[in-house]
């Protein structure tokens, strides 16, 4: 069309960065398989790790890529969790559709609150995300007939996955179900980040004014990203509900949002891998430490946060120098 030589086209094409699949991507799956094979007792913990990885991935989309500072992501997780629980209770105990319902619930809350949250910046934005989360928490607390209030939502059964895999007491089905959901999530997130939309989001992050002058409706694109992030957060919540068969108010609390943000700072934002590393490290550590004394854990966490931001703002991934490089 333009008469360019193939070499020029190749040169230009290669100048577009993307996440390349490499041997590193196999590591999480090896770890998942290894835990199941070798450390069977840790399978339930492993499932928790998987759920949190998905949640952290969703947060990374919003915070790491979109630059949307949110301390209220639990609102989306909890919405998904309650949606999955209510779906199983009232519509069908089939898990996959329940998971989709959870994702849609998370996306819906993001879509509705997004315009307000995105209209603001800085501490006002943070405050609004906190406020949204608090409002949802209050609603869940007060709406006892539907949500079970402080006692939580229980008593729903989850049918076997794909009709064949029953949820066993040892948690094996839950583990592999979670792993499958994680695989799909990671695949979709990777696709998103490598897509034209992913480049647009990076552009918005770098220079929103210029993007507007390229004709891109910046706020609309950010809302799209936030909604997609909400979908994955909701779906993480739904997974949690289906696996534990219980949905409590803790799915909407600030603690959850804060933890997810800590996972990202530990692992590193804006790279997807950071979410995996950070979530794993955090869940494993907090499981051990919180059992000893939650307040001592909180103290240590606070110190770690301060030091991490000061000395390792790019997280473990940054330290290990896994960066996306144009080839």
């Amino acid at each position, binding site marked *: 069309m333009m008469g360019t030589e193939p070499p020029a086209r190749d040169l230009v094409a290669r100048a577009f960065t993307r996440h390349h699949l490499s041997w590193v991507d196999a590591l999480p799956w090896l770890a998942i398989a290894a835990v199941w094979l070798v450390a069977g007792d840790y399978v339930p913990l492993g499932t928790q790790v998987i759920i949190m990885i998905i949640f952290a991935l969703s947060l990374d989309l919003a915070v790491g890529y979109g630059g949307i500072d949110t301390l209220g992501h639990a609102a989306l997780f909890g919405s998904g969790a309650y949606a999955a629980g209510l779906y199983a209770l009232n519509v069908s105990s089939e898990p996959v559709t329940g998971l989709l319902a959870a994702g849609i619930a998370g996306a819906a809350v993001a879509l509705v609150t997004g315009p307000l949250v995105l209209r603001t910046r800085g501490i006002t934005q943070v405050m609004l995300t906190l406020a*949204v989360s608090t409002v949802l928490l209050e609603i869940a607390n007060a709406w006892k007939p539907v949500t079970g209030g402080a006692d939580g939502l229980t008593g729903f059964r989850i049918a076997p996955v794909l009709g064949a895999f029953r949820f066993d007491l040892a948690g094996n089905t839950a583990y592999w179900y979670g792993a499958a959901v994680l695989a799909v999530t990671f695949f979709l997130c990777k696709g998103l980040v490598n897509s034209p939309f992913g480049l647009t989001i990076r552009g918005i992050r770098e220079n929103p004014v210029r993007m507007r002058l390229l004709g891109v409706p910046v706020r609309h694109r950010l809302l799209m990203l936030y909604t997609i992030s909400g979908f994955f957060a909701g779906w993480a919540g739904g997974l949690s509900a289906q696996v534990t068969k219980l949905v409590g108010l803790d799915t909407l609390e600030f603690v959850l949002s804060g933890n997810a943000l800590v996972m990202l700072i530990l692992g590193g934002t804006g790279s997807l891998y950071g979410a995996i590393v950070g979530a794993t490290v955090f869940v494993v550590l907090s499981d051990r430490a919180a059992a000893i004394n939650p307040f001592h854990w909180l103290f240590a966490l606070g110190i770690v946060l301060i030091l991490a931001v000061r000395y390792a703002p790019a997280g473990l991934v940054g330290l290990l120098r896994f960066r996306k490089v144009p080839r």
Partner: protein
Amino acid sequence: MINPSTIATLLVDGISYGMILFLISAGLTVTLGVMRVANLAHCAFAMVGGYLALALAQSWGWSLLAALPVATILTVALGAVLERTVYRWVYATSQLGQILMTIGLVFVMIASVNLAFGSSLHTLPMPAWLAGTWQTQAFTLSVYRAFLVVVSTGLAGALWAVLEFTEFGAKLRAAVDNPRMARCVGIDVPRIFAITFAGGCGLAAIGGVLGNQMLPLEPWYALKYLVPVLIVVAVGGLGSLRGSFLSALLLGLIDTFGRYYIPAGGAFIIYVAAAAALLWRPEGLFARA
């Protein structure tokens, strides 16, 4: 429902709650306005002030009024020390980094307070002359609440006087309006900020001590009341003391009246109101143009 006695009580309750929120928020709005630092640990200083007063009351039997100035001074000292140390790091990082660091600081403070006092709720012993109510024909007035309104108004007035009539106040106003310009005309902005930060912590401590009947002390205090404080600051406009004063009053009144008249959804009303206000004016209702 609409009887004057109830209205009067609700008014006083709402105003006193608003004033406490203002005292706690005042420091935050100024530091946000001058240095644009997302300091989510601000509410923790109110908590620390309250707990220091509690320690004085419990260990040495001091009364509320005696403990107040000492607790405030100690909190100011803590704020000053932290400003010179941890907050140096905070200024140097990105917005997200500031949020995370100050959250880390909150965690440390919450855990420390829990270590010292345990996790149950505490209120400070109230002196006898503050307890009780004034009964008149028209209405019943809580002495404590009236005292709160008087003291807070006095403090707000003193703040305003400092801003308007002192050299420090003028420099501070300049620093808030245009930090870069202020530096160019020779105003030592970092020093102004350090003093303001410490002062803000002191005000927060006063709010924490005086308001502890309404906002009881517990380790999670620092996070629990963070959202209302942030709402006050955001709706009032970052950097605007006048804005915070007005939005705090508004929030106090809306919350009190809302909870009374709509028990089911009353708690949400401030969030809905805040959302509406910010939708209309994202920089704050009373922010300067």
